[in-house]
């Protein structure tokens, strides 16, 4: 079989290394790498014709590759990669966001080689997490994401960037090492033949319920901090506010998805009993995250901070849909992750552009954007409407199915996220009213509308928002090709 996944990883690796040494031409190398990556991701999508049978010799993953890596008798580790519908959708998201980010930050002038190299490296790490099918490779990429993001925040960030970068690192690193021990324990206590996902899958279902609960809790802590779940969410607003725009896009668009993906792949699929037993806890945390994220979001004046907190709210819905632990719920969770990746990426680009254009992100002190910079206003409009869940834009089908799945399990409790959705929608509308309409205020005398590269970066995401909003089946039909999220009942 053609090793498309390894080829893609190699493409990004080579592209990253070349970008680092390319100096002034770095952006061209990064753009070329991104375009090749997008082609490769499309090739994966076109070649994806469903999954081979799980068990009975089949790995259950498409395009899977496995090579011996470390064999010590007691420890068997292979380099294993593979795709199912869930990972494929997230790989596509990575490709889209990488391209959009590279284009959006086209004119980055502070050490462009390092900037574009680190952006590519972050995407490489995320891609690796999504395709890795063994514990070592998964953890390797999981950790590899931290280093470039740390530098993106620490060097290109805002005034409190060092504090924010450190906090980001502490929270996520501590969580991930705990997760690592839990992964070890899962492999050794279940007596799995190797650290490969298919071998774990064959062994972990036999674990005792109490062991599953302990492992699920430890892993949930590890993945939950990335989500982020309340009360481990405080790194997120700091990191977002201080991060440069491109960094925020990757942080919200990709890094948060790592937590959700990890939870589905390494907890829901491997420890079904454990996740069922801790589901009540997950529901509570999800509801608190939804409400608290929304409340915090409402009280912000800073546009970027507001978008950052709304991420906590949206990821809370993702957690809710995962905790429902039904095929529809998991499908909805993945769809929502994709949607949130695109929409929050767009919103962070928007707030970055507002800041560049008007010199501030303070919502009350800027007004009349529509009349002064119509392009930017359009982008704000699309992003906000998508985020509040307007039908025909991408978030709607995702949130709709998520709430549908929640209704199946929790019945009237679904009122909580529903009410919050309405409140959030109202707040977005008010934000738009203040920023977009009314008399011109704030910013310099003469404002220029979006430069072409910022516009083009956002246009990619807007196009995706509309495309998948109208035709969510394009994604749904892929997502359900997975052992857990499909087929539809």
């Amino acid at each position, binding site marked *: 079989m053609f090793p498309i996944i390894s080829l893609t990883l190699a493409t990004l690796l080579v592209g990253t290394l070349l970008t680092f040494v390319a100096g002034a031409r770095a952006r061209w190398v990064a753009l070329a790498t991104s375009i090749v990556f997008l082609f490769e991701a499309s090739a994966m999508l076109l070649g994806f014709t469903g999954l081979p049978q799980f068990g009975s010799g089949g790995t259950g993953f498409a395009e899977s590759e496995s090579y011996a890596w470390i064999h010590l*008798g*007691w420890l068997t580790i292979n380099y294993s990669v593979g795709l199912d519908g869930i990972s494929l959708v997230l790989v596509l998201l990575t490709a889209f966001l990488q391209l959009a980010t590279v284009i959006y930050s086209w004119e980055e002038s502070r050490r462009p080689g390092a900037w574009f190299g680190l952006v590519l490296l972050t995407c490489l790490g995320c891609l690796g997490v999504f395709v890795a099918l063994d514990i*070592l490779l998964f*953890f390797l990429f999981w950790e*590899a994401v931290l280093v470039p993001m740390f530098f993106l925040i620490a060097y290109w960030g805002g005034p409190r960037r060092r504090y924010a970068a450190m906090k980001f690192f502490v929270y996520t690193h501590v969580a991930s090492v*705990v997760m*690592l021990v839990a992964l*070890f324990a899962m492999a050794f206590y279940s007596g799995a033949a190797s650290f490969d996902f298919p071998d774990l899958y064959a062994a972990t279902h036999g674990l005792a319920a109490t062991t599953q609960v302990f492992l699920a809790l430890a892993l949930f802590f590890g993945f939950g901090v990335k989500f982020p779940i309340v009360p481990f969410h405080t790194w997120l607003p700091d990191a977002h506010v201080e991060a440069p725009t491109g960094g925020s896009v990757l942080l919200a668009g990709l890094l948060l998805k790592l937590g959700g993906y990890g939870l589905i792949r390494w907890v829901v699929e491997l420890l079904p009993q454990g996740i069922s037993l801790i589901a009540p806890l997950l529901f509570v945390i999800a509801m608190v995250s939804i409400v608290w994220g929304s409340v915090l979001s409402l009280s912000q004046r800073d546009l970027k901070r507001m978008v950052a907190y709304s991420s906590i709210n949206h990821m809370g819905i993702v957690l809710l849909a995962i905790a429902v632990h039904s095929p529809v719920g998991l499908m909805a969770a993945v769809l929502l992750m994709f949607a949130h990746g695109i929409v929050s990426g767009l919103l962070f680009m928007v707030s970055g552009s507002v800041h560049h254009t008007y010199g501030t992100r303070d919502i009350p002190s800027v007004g009349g954007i529509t009349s002064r910079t119509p392009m930017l206003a359009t982008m704000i409009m699309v992003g906000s409407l998508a985020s509040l869940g307007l039908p025909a834009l991408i978030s709607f089908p995702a949130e709709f199915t998520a709430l549908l799945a929640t209704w199946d399990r929790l019945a009237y409790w679904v009122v909580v996220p529903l009410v919050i959705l309405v409140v959030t929608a109202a707040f977005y509308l008010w934000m738009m009213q203040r920023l977009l309409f009314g008399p011109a205020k704030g910013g310099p005398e003469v404002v220029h509308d979006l430069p072409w590269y910022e516009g083009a970066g956002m246009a990619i995401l807007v196009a995706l928002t509309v495309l998948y909003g109208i035709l969510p089946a394009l994604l749904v039909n892929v997502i359900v090709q997975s052992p857990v999220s499909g087929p539809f009942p």
Partner: protein
Amino acid sequence: MLAFLPEVVLLATALVIFLLDVVGERRLEVLGGIAVAGLLASLALVLADLGFAPLAALRTLPAADVDLIPATSALFAFTSLGLAFEAIFLTAALLVALASLSRPSGEKGAAVFFGLLLIATLGMTTAAIAADLIFLLLAVEVVGISTYLLVGYPRRDPRGLEAAMKFYIVGALSTALSFFGASLLFGAYGSTNLVILSQATGSVGYPALALAGYALLIAGLGFKLTIVPFHAWAVDVYDGAPTDVSAFLAGGSKKVGLVAFFLLFIGPVSLIVVRPVACVGGVCPTAFDFAPTLQLALGILAVLTMTVGNVLALLQREMKRMLAYSSISQAGYMLLGIAVGTAPALAGATFQVLAHVFMKSGAFLVVAGVAGLGVGPLIEDWRGLGQRRPVLATAFALMLLSLAGIPLTVGFLSKFVLFSAAVNAQGYFVWLAVAGVLNSALSVFYYARVLKVMYVDPSPAEIPAPPALPFGGIGYGRAAAIALVVIAIVALGVDPQPVLGPLQSAANHFVLTGP
């Protein structure tokens, strides 16, 4: 006695160097070159004995003589794990010797430096094949005496002399404790043979006496390995010694303490974990078996060592002291392997030692090189090095990332294997693994701080001119050593199997046959 050829080569090279000094040949390049050649030859012989195929022609130790259960009268035994440690020690010495070729050529005492380096290495390699406690302690003493002198060899440097004096006094104390412990063990069991000792824990003789003996040995050898609370000397000594010597102490010679722990404690510890409880000479273990106590004590010491090392490293403002504390914490990770005591944990700990040789020696060698460029001792003094010396800074960053356990470096994989071995042993060792990973997370901060200083902070206004050595003031030898370290960190970080596989089989043999 062809089997001792690697040791003979080391001794002969050292003697040649001392003789040349007597006849007036004192050029650093010549003496250093001879030392490097001797170390290379010795390393080749050891690798051949380990069964490294391309060097099979050099093999002097028949495969049939390796990994036998030693006789109860044996002084030494060739185990593949011991040979692996010999190779690791020789690698450490080689890196330091290679880098020291770039020391200022007017410097006096080249013969003392290289000669003592070889003698210390000789002591280390001999310790690795010991099968008798007294033989082991004597070998450790050889290392001790030659390293006291190494620390003080630049006789004009008061800081070095002070460090040497401290090192000597603490070392003498630790030797006294070790020998006292050995005498108690002899009193309890009537033997100093490690095989007899390892199978006897509490089963015969006077268990309480033996437990006291082991406790004293933990203290005495713990000084060598810088285990908390016997660590305090290490920071002052590493800080005061010439930095290349610190590279050897931290990266190489302190591991001799670990080898001693391996030989002394794996037997007793693995007795309860792996080996079926053996009856020695018709006497079978009785109720009071203190092996579990010993194991728990080692586990607690391991966690204490890594935690104290890391926390204190966080507080340091000087680069060398930070690296010294980090070295203490790394000793904790290695000790964890002994506390767990299974073959996987042994392999993991040995791999961690190898990784640490590259990371820590490499880091100190870079520090020595950077000091030669006029950069001060404080971490702050490294501001902007990333822009001024991108290659050197990248190499140092890689070593620090490896120490922090960031993926695609050997430091990541060695911890990965070590901690997974602890979880694999199950029981309370899972909590040792948790303590280990949390410590590893903690350690990231002080390494990340250096990265921040090098890459994010701006350069100081005045930059001293580098000395007239090649490679921008680094010198060929040092540049080669640093390049070797970087290659090893990345190559072993991507594909550890060629080294880890043989280490695992060596550890399997070691647990079965003992020292």
